[in-house]
């Protein structure tokens, strides 16, 4: 009714409706057109700018605009003779083991000379192996030696032991700071056969300690970890059930109880905040973590219970003294577990840097400078760098390992010839 009324009856209703259509149309179209015109310019211009910015950003990321750096004179190692070579600029990127991270961090600050920067990402040994296999880093770091499959996936990869460490069981039990473990009991705890802290097997190792009746909360490592590899290698050696069911692996066996934590640091903090928890980390992490953490003593083959430190991990290396392969061979069966000495710590292992032997064919972007820098850094690490190791609870490399390392480093190639070993960039030893 109302709509038909306004449509037909012109005289009374127009006043409210007519003025608006009559007066507004002239200005309205102009305004609309102007707005449209302005909008049609602004939007494409902004879009084009955004696209250009994106393309430039992608270009930078892909290295389109990278200026080619001129390489220094080929194969001269003037530093050794004159001692006055300028350090070549560059960044050395590494990724891998969190076990050895405190040491590599220390090396980064000590080695840094203002133009050669090392950047290390402690994403775990498995990540280190993946990254070096994909050639996205200059060196990888792994506490686990590579399997034949892994070596086959990265032809020309060298394993260079750069430090040795001990893996210790850590636990969080209120008021209990000193516990004894052996390999078999550890295996049974971590595979869920021993579920309570007052278990008789555990109690018999710890006479005089009042163990609480509390469920054990195991904490293991997320993803692939070299520390897990060292620890499971030890459990495999000491417990036949573990050996036949789970074996030595980078990834924690599936189906076992417990929760997981990321990195040695995450493992230490999870155990130290979880009551009744047990885990395993490198010595340095156990020592620098919170006071609520107990460090377990582990029984060695002579029956002694040993709390790991630099001295007894170093003596384990020296006492075992196995015949070592060359840097390009497989190190998978090299083991420093269960050394025979009365005071040796049983869960000791080397940890490895992974680098390519032929740098010019491995990395198309490499110059001789980059190759020299990398070799220089590693050479510094296994010589001067070793004097930092004991301060961070790592055992310095014994002579028989250094001999192999030196041979490995001198086998590294650039453009068909060995990379000269200069040690020009490194900082000094700790004072």
């Amino acid at each position, binding site marked *: 009714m109302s709509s038909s009324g306004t449509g037909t009856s012109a005289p009374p209703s127009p006043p409210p409706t007519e003025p608006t259509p009559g007066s507004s149309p002239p200005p309205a179209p102009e305004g609309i057109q102007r707005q449209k*015109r302005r909008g*049609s*310019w602004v*939007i*494409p211009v902004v*879009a*084009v700018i955004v*696209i250009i910015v994106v393309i430039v950003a992608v270009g930078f990321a892909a290295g389109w605009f990278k200026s080619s750096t001129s390489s220094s004179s080929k194969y001269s190692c003037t530093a050794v003779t004159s001692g006055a070579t300028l350090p070549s600029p560059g960044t050395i990127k590494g990724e891998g083991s969190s076990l050895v991270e405190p040491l590599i961090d220390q090396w980064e600050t000590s080695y840094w000379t203002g133009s050669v920067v090392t950047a290390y990402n402690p*994403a*775990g040994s*498995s*990540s280190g192996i*993946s*990254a070096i296999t994909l050639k996205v880093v200059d060196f990888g770091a792994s506490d686990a030696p590579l399997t034949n*499959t892994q070596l086959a996936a990265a032809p020309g990869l060298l394993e260079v032991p750069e430090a040795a460490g001990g893996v210790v069981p850590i636990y969080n039990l209120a008021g209990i700071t000193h516990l004894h473990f052996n390999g078999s009991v550890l295996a049974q705890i971590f595979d869920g056969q021993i579920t309570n802290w007052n278990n008789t097997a555990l109690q018999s190792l710890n006479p005089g300690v009042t163990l609480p009746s509390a*469920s*054990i*909360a195991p*904490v293991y490592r*997320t*993803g*692939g*970890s070299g520390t897990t590899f060292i620890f499971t290698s030890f459990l495999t050696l000491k417990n036949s059930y573990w050996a036949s069911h*789970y*074996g030595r*692996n*980078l*990834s924690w*066996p*599936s*189906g076992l109880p*417990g*929760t*997981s*934590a*990321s990195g040695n640091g995450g493992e230490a903090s*999870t155990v130290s*905040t*979880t*009551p*009744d*928890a047990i885990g395993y980390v490198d010595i340095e992490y156990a020592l620098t973590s919170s006071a609520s953490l107990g460090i377990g003593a582990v029984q060695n083959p002579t029956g002694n219970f040993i709390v790991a430190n630099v001295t007894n991990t170093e003596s384990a290396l020296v006492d075992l003294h196995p015949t070592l392969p060359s840097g390009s061979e497989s190190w998978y069966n090299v083991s420093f577990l269960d050394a025979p000495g009365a005071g040796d710590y049983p869960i000791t292992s080397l940890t490895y840097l992974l680098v390519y032997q032929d740098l010019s064919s491995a990395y198309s972007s490499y110059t001789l400078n980059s190759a020299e820098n990398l070799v220089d850094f590693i050479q510094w690490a296994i010589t001067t760098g070793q004097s930092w190791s004991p301060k961070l609870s790592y055992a310095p490399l014994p002579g028989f390992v250094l001999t192999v390392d030196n041979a490995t480093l001198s086998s590294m190639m650039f453009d068909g010839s060995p990379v000269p070993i200069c040690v020009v960039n490194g900082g000094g030893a700790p004072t």
Partner: protein
Amino acid sequence: MDPSTPSPPSSPGPSSDSRKVSRWPDRIFFVVVTIVGLGILAMAFAIVGILANSSRESFRVFGWGFLYGTIWDPNKQIFGVIPFVVGTLLTSGIALLIALPLALGSAIFITTQAPRYLRGPVGTAIELLAAVPSVIYGFWGLFVIVPYMRTTVDPFLRTWFGFTGLFTGPAYGFGVLTASVVLAVMIVPTICAVSRDSLLAVPVAQQEAAVSLGATNWETTRTAMLPYARSGIVGGTILGLGRALGETMAVTMVIGNVDRIPTSLFSPGQTIASLIANELLSSTGPLQTSAILECGLVLLGISLGVNVAARLLVWRITKSAGAIVT
């Protein structure tokens, strides 16, 4: 001087010129926008394509069994997606159960119950919460929620609800329930903000009508406002659920990252997103990488399913709500 004098009479000329010129910007605009639009479409297809292509190896080895495989064992190279599907759906579901009443309550508070001077500030604060980066929530979860769950919530639930069998296992603090709580806090602002907007859109006349009939505040809210705002509330809820399903960082920090089907609400678990974050870079080989990417494809499928379900739900609700309003 000469050029200035001819210009006033030839005013139609420039205007026709400008009309000719003005076509070009439009054409460029059309082309640019088309390229950008199709580019995004192409990118979406490329992502699905690359995921599918990368998971071929895993599909070749496990086939459809991957989708109902309950074991994820990198050492034995056996991979199945079920532990993570359970983890994802469980954490998101519980998070939604916790978040929905909170979000709806605060949205109703802001729109109807709060004094006028509080509505603006509280609304803005909630929108700000929605903009907090997830790693901050993870950080907060790790240092506040995890210890609190372990020392307070965990014993309480064990004592009073232990009979349900849902609360067993060691008290890590990390786990499915903790992840759900953190997720709930993360999605409350999302749900609340959208719900508030749709509650604000309820016509005042409708509220006044309810009040004039003698309805109490509660009755007005229940009969006049909530039905009208239903589609918006459902939309916000689905948005929140979507965020919960894909949330990675905060979940990774508090869920415990264990590749098993959770046996209780206290047991650590893993969602698909946290699995990808944890294991893609440290995978043990090409098969695991491929399996992880196939998990990503499954997550994409779940998200897509939730979105489609949400569309259908909103569509049905608006249809029925429309019928009620008219």
